[in-house]
């Protein structure tokens, strides 16, 4: 297995209390596979991604328990220096939502795409230059040799996200964490970046964790889906199973709440209420307060029920 995460807990120690941002996550990604980490804002999907690289909020973020293994190597016991040298940007790379904030406006794109290659000692001198041109070609920046000296503002939004992708794949990482990589883009540009991510995966066999709130984008890219709610994974399984026969009431509610193209105009099934605070969250099922199928049992933490074929969900209803 490329990535295996077990019982990962990352809490934020704030002045107002301990925020259980990531609370007992289990997930795995196979080589060349895309796992969609789907959830709403505050569900902990971005912090799960950052926890893999131990890029935690300074001072407050702490990994409490759990294991993160990449190609069998345990990452939670590595030192900061080891992480910086061998993992971040080298074996696990990230693509963030907004290309304007992940690119530095005062450095040329040649410098920025070359940065990880230099830092990880992958290429120097003329070899570095041709490696930069090569990776920019792979993300389909037209005539990259002429544009190495250009700055981010001289590129369009879609091209900037291509450049961010080039920075990420330059060092041939094993795992790519893409956090809302198309959310800041227009729909006709989004489709181009989705195609690029598919191509990167196909060419490089890289494993991808796609973090998104957009169920359409997840469906178009992922083989498996993990649905997060309030810091926990409530359901995981093959993409078709999750979309066709979701088992967790939250997944069902989420799929019913979105307007769909070319479907009958019916009233949307809104989910009442809002997610709980993760400072002293409910001890039982965290979705219970909004759940139409709530029972007395839901005051206890629900077990994760294996539904076969890699499909599982954490809900008391499924034990009956």
């Amino acid at each position, binding site marked *: 297995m490329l990535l295996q995460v077990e019982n990962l807990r990352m809490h934020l120690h704030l002045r107002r209390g301990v925020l259980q941002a990531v609370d007992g996550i289990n997930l795995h990604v196979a080589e060349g596979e895309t796992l969609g980490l789907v959830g709403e804002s505050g569900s902990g999907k971005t912090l799960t991604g950052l926890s893999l690289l131990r890029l935690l909020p300074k001072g407050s973020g702490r990994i409490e328990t759990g294991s993160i293994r990449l190609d069998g190597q345990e990452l939670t016991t590595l030192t900061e220096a080891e992480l910086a040298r061998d993992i971040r940007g080298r074996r696990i790379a990230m693509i963030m939502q907004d290309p304007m904030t992940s690119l530095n406006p005062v450095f040329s794109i040649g410098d920025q795409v070359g940065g990880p290659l230099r830092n990880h000692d992958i290429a120097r001198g003329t070899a570095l230059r041709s490696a930069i041109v090569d990776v920019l070609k792979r993300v389909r920046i037209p005539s990259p040799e002429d544009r190495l000296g250009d700055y981010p503002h001289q590129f369009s939004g879609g091209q900037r996200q291509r450049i961010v992708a080039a920075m990420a794949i330059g060092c041939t990482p094993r795992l790519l964490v893409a956090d809302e990589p198309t959310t800041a883009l227009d729909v006709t540009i989004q489709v181009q970046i989705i195609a690029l991510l598919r191509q990167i995966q196909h060419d490089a066999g890289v494993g991808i964790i796609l973090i998104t709130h957009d169920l359409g984008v997840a469906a178009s890219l992922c083989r498996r889906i993990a649905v997060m709610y309030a810091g926990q994974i409530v359901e995981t399984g093959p993409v078709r199973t999750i979309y066709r026969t979701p088992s967790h009431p939250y997944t069902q509610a989420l799929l019913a709440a979105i307007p769909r193209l070319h479907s009958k105009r019916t009233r949307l099934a809104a*989910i009442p209420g*809002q997610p709980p605070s993760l400072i002293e969250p409910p001890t039982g099922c965290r979705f219970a307060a909004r759940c139409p199928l709530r029972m007395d049992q839901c005051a206890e933490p629900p077990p994760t029920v294996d539904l076969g074929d890699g499909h599982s969900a954490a809900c008391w209803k499924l034990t009956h």
Partner: protein
Amino acid sequence: MLELAGITKHYRTRNGIVRAVEDVSFTVPPKGTMALVGESGCGKTTIAKIILRLERPTAGIVRFEGADIATMSRAELHAYRRQVAAVFQDPYSSLNPRLRVHSIIAEPILAHERPGRAELDKRIAEVLDIVGLPATAATLYPHEFSGGQRQRIAIARALALQPRLMVLDEPVSALDVSIRAQVLNLLQDIQAEFGLTYLIIAHDLALVEHFSSDVAVIYLGRVAEAGPTEKVFANPRHPYTQALLAAVPLPDPDHVLSETAATGEIASALNPPSGCRFHPRCPHVFAPCSVVVPPAYPAGPGHHVACHLLKDLSA
């Protein structure tokens, strides 16, 4: 009810003239929901600002119930502003963080009327009740609410003067999926109850299809296609509308995305392409497209398409 005729807006900048909106005409039917849909920079928000008279058009006329809003007297304009309200995208920046909800909702009322304290409190409680918030919410500050609740407060403020037209600029795009449905349903309930007319600006096509009765698809400041939502979505005739619809990833793992419906990037409004502004990206481009601006050809009742492909069909 609301009619735009030949609305054009150019901005003079250091780098030249930005042609944000070019010759846009449409009519918003009373009690209907008109959607303006398009990608960023297409001019949809500029059109909303012109309707709200936050911007003046370079050319063209906006008529509200037949009256040109550019030539209204102070009193008429005052009356217009009573009848037209707006809800903006981001409920974090559209509500003043230093004011309590009571003052936020009272502000538009006090700009138009002088109600007594008890009357004012009663009206604020009423609009809060319409949007599903308790009367006690009036004593709190915006930061004490979630994003969805803040958008409810923004809607309550818009309702305070019992407007007839509401301009909704991306009203749910800052909200989470599970909260979006709550706010969309609320807006639909309010419309049905008070007979409001909506003009919604959105980029989410599934939302537009779900929410609107009529739609105008805008590309780089020009209307590409407009008509009854049902017709436009069932049978899109403009290659840009077709590209937009083909590019939407559906929540269905068996749906295959079209990666070729629109290639390239959106051009700059500073230097828009000649002829049809979509022609450099259009898979069906032919001789006249780069030279002649396509007129709006009829494609069915109330359905218009600005594309040369329809010329022979309509002749």
